[in-house]
Structure formats: structure tokens, C-alpha cells
């Protein structure tokens, strides 16, 4: 019995969701057994060593020139050969765009189900929870024959932390032929230069429709400044051009995991909540007590943001003085 967790990297860095997926695996260790990681790429070097620090029993490295760049064919074939050998009962992917592009393919090769976008695991019954109707309902599923694949939603599990000592790393020989790779990818590009990395922020002050007018942004800018926080926003604010797109948080923007996330005048649509679930503490300030954001918040203040936010800015300045 074992679990295989598929790690994902881009531009020389591990995607944090890899280690959230690892946590899901480690939570199931008692029922599914040893937890292994797998890194796919070419000349990964230090990156593979780094991946081994997070608590997997062993990290397999699938190294081949033909998986230097991601293609669904290359990655599926490489992973298929490892899975065929290790025969894990559970394979876990982070539910990233990349995993969505090839994980179903790998699962289908083994005739196994992929329960995608999982938000919870239950070891006792070997069941997995996922959302239906964009979060309006939850469903709990299990594999008909006890084994299969899952992918886990961003922020559903707290990322495993790296230990001081690296763990075991094991190269796994993959044989691939260029003719097996049917798609020819070109280099990824960005249309607008992004200079703000919200992921690095400890504290984020995020603003939504409740701010009403662009001129009112000053109120939250002052709070962000007093806290030394990054300013962010929900989609409507960026669609209006009040703040640049690079400050947008949610499924079509950035995924963040600060220590504290202030949701100011944000109602909490599922697309926004997906982007903030990794936050340690969420503070919601909203005049509507039924706003869904309060279901995800740790602290809530129901009231007028134009009164509460300036008062908070004032208190923070005093506390820091």
C-alpha cells in the first residue's frame, strides 16, 4: 500500500500546492501506507533535493530531456511508467491547470477514476469530498475498488513544511521517444508584466465591490500602509480598472496564503474564496451579515467599512508607535 504525490514546478521553483497535496497524502498515511513524491523534469538537481525535505518517504525523480518542457504526452508517459512500477493505491495531484491538462489521461490509462478538485479526505472510510455546483453542494465519494487518483484544491490543505535534512531521492529511469510527443509547445509568455507577487505577502488588505467608487480606495490604501500590507482586490475592482489586474486575487488571479487576509467589502464568491483559502486568518468586514465571506472568515465585523477601516488604521498606527 502506498501513496504517490505528484509535485509540480515552474521556472525553477516548486509550486506550493505540491506540498499541500503532500499533506493530503500524509494525512492518509495510516490507511494508504508509505507516501512517496515524484518530481518530473530534466536536470532538476537541487530542486529534487529540496522536494525531499517536505516529509515524503522518498522522492522519485523522472529525468528525461523530453520532459524538460511540459507536454501532456511526455508527462503522462513518464508518470505511467512509474505508477506501473510502484503500483500506488492512491495518486495525488495538486489541482493546477497543468494537472488538469494530463492527470485524467494518466488515470484513464489505468482505468482508474480521478476525483478532481478535492477539498477534504476522510481516512477512516477512504472517502473524498469535492464541491458541486461551484460550491453550493458538497459530495462525498469513494473509489469503487478502493484505489484511484485525486487532485486537491488550492488551499484545502496546509502545505507541509520543509525539514532541515533532505530525505531520500531516487532516480527512476524513463524511456521516451520523440515520436511519442505529439504536441509542440512554445515558450510560455505573459501579456502584461506582473511586478506584484502577492504570494510573498504576510498581510494582505483586499477590497471588493463594497468600496463603491475608485476615489474611496484611499481608505484601504491607508490601512495597507499602516499594516505594511499588500493591497489586493476581487475581480470586479480589477475589471473596472480601479486596481491593476496583477493585484487580483481568486481563481482567475493570484492564489494567496498570507498570515492575515483582510476582506474589505468583499461578498465572497467561490472564485474569490478559492484564492484565499490558504490564508491563516481571514478577517471580513462587510455590511451584509449574510455575505458568504463570513462562512470562511475567522473574524467578522458587520458594519460600515468607511467607519471600521479608518478606526482600524488609527488603532494600528497607535499600536505601532
Amino acid at each position, binding site marked *: 500500500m502506498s501513496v504517490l504525490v505528484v509535485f509540480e514546478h515552474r521556472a525553477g521553483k516548486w509550486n506550493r500546492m505540491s506540498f499541500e497535496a503532500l499533506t493530503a497524502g500524509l494525512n492518509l498515511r495510516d490507511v494508504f501506507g508509505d507516501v512517496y513524491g515524484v518530481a518530473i523534469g530534466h536536470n532538476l538537481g537541487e530542486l529534487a533535493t529540496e522536494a525531499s525535505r517536505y516529509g515524503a518517504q522518498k522522492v522519485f525523480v523522472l529525468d528525461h530531456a523530453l520532459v524538460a518542457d511540459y507536454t501532456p504526452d511526455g508527462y503522462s508517459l513518464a508518470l505511467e511508467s512509474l505508477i506501473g512500477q510502484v503500483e500506488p493505491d492512491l495518486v495525488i495531484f495538486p489541482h493546477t491547470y497543468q494537472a488538469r491538462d494530463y492527470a485524467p489521461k494518466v488515470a484513464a490509462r489505468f482505468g482508474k477514476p480521478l476525483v478532481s478538485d478535492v477539498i477534504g479526505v476522510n481516512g477512516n472510510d477512504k472517502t473524498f469530498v469535492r464541491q458541486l455546483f461551484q460550491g453550493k453542494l458538497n459530495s462525498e465519494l469513494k473509489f469503487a475498488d478502493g484505489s484511484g487518483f485525486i487532485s486537491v484544491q488550492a488551499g484545502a490543505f496546509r502545505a507541509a513544511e520543509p525539514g532541515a535534512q533532505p530525505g531520500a531521492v531516487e532516480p527512476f529511469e524513463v524511456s521516451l521517444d520523440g515520436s511519442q510527443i505529439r504536441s509542440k*509547445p512554445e515558450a510560455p509568455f505573459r501579456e502584461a508584466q506582473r511586478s506584484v507577487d502577492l504570494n510573498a505577502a504576510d498581510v494582505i488588505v483586499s477590497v471588493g465591490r463594497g468600496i463603491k467608487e475608485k476615489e474611496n480606495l484611499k481608505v484601504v490604501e491607508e490601512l495597507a500602509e499602516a499594516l505594511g500590507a499588500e493591497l489586493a482586490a476581487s475581480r470586479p475592482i480589477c475589471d473596472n480598472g480601479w486596481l491593476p489586474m496583477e493585484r487580483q486575487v481568486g481563481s482567475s488571479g493570484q492564489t494567496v496564503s498570507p498570515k492575515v487576509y483582510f476582506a474589505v467589502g468583499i461578498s465572497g464568491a467561490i472564485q474569490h474564496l478559492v484564492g484565499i483559502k490558504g490564508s491563516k486568518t481571514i478577517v471580513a468586514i462587510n455590511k451584509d451579515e449574510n455575505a458568504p465571506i463570513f462562512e470562511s472568515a475567522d473574524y467578522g465585523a458587520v458594519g460600515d467599512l468607511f467607519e471600521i477601516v479608518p478606526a482600524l488604521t488609527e488603532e494600528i498606527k497607535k499600536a505601532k508607535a
Partner: protein
Amino acid sequence: MKFIVSVKQVPSRDSALKIDGNGTGLDDSDLTYEMNEPDAYALEEALQLKEKLGGELVVVSLGPATVTQTIREALAKGADRAIHIQTERAPSDALAIARLLAKAIASEAPDFVLTGLQSDDLGFGQTGVLLAELLGFPHATIVMEVEPQGDSVRVKRELEDGWFQHVTMPLPVVLTIQSGIKRLRYATLMGIKKAKAKEIRVLQASELDTAGASPTETVRVYLPERSKQLQLLSGDPKQIAHQLVEMLRFEARAI
């Protein structure tokens, strides 16, 4: 060129969702339905490709008799004919659904298979990729632009965090189309009239010989509980501010 668009019928967005007596599915007695919005974008993309390249566009849909309404809508917008895989109740598993769809699509020998990137009801986001695997075609997901180049196609894909990528693949291909990339057309009166004469071939799901039963079991469907313990702060703005500062200092250690 032959285009296939796989279209799903889903409960309307404003439907009141009720859980059925078994607690494992939806009570469908009061539901109204609509075309899954991401699939509507796939259909639009295929209609525009067909207008550019010529050929035939076939819509494939799976589900009970109510699905006819969604198929008619696609035909009215310009699809040439349709295949309806009839089942009393669609499987609740992505692989089981894709096996049925692939079986019906394979015999059509298409050049392009398009579908939405996910469904608004189950939201597995797997149908396109599974169809590609089962049909043996290359694929690309979350496609923003499609540039046909003779016997291959170059597409622009959306990656995460504002990144994009171009990918070229030989035909036949499966593409999942990003929502919102083109304006959806309305069916014209003429289109609606013409649709009545278009062919809808009905296949019984039970007669399609597909491998294996559903590989997952739904244990229960339920309303999500509040996952976090919300602490509501009371008092005037100053008191609320004071409590938040205490939290920031001593609990979050953020100031």
C-alpha cells in the same frame, strides 16, 4: 473538416437545489435546465471554425429526454446534426461519461472535437482530456485562440498567473475552450425553424459497449457546513478596531 462539439445539459444557474431522498444526488422534480455555459463557448468556437474552413458540425450530448431541448438549441445556432446518447440518469463519474461519449464520437472520425473546460454542475473538468485519451487524439485545454494550419492546429492556451503558451498539434485533436473568449450568438428564427428538420440520432447508452462500470461511488451529497469558527466582533468601530489590533498583535503576530 468535421467538427464534433460535446455539449452537456445542466440545471439552470438559478435553480433551487434540493437533495434527493437517498441523499446521494439531486431531486430533479423541479429543476429547469440550460446548456452548460462553457460548452456554449466551445460550440461558438466550432461554429466560427466551420464558417472559416467549411465542413460539418455534429453535436453530441448525453442524458435523459430533457437533453433534446439543449440539442435543439445547438442545432438552431448552426450545428448540422446531433447524436443524443440517451440514459435515464447520466453517470456521476467523469470516466464513465467520457467512455460513452468517446464510443459515439469515434465512429464519426472527426478532425476537431471541442468541449467546454468544465461543467457547471459536477465540475470535474475532465471530459475533454479523457475523450482525447480514449480516442487516441492529442489535446490542449483552456484554449483561448485556435489557428488551423492545414493538417495541424496552433492554439493559445491559458496557464496560471497570467501566463499563456502556444502549442501546435497534428489533427485530429480535442480542445477544451476557455469561457468568455468570444461573444455567444443567439439562435435566429430561421435557425430555430431549420433545426426542426435536422437529424438527431438517438443511441441508447445501455447498448453502447463501453468498458467497465462507474469507478466511483457517491456516498452522500450534502449542504456544506461552515468550516471555520467565525468570531463576530461587536461594539462600535473603535471597539472593533481595538479587538482586531489585539488579534494582530498577540495571535497573528503581524504587527
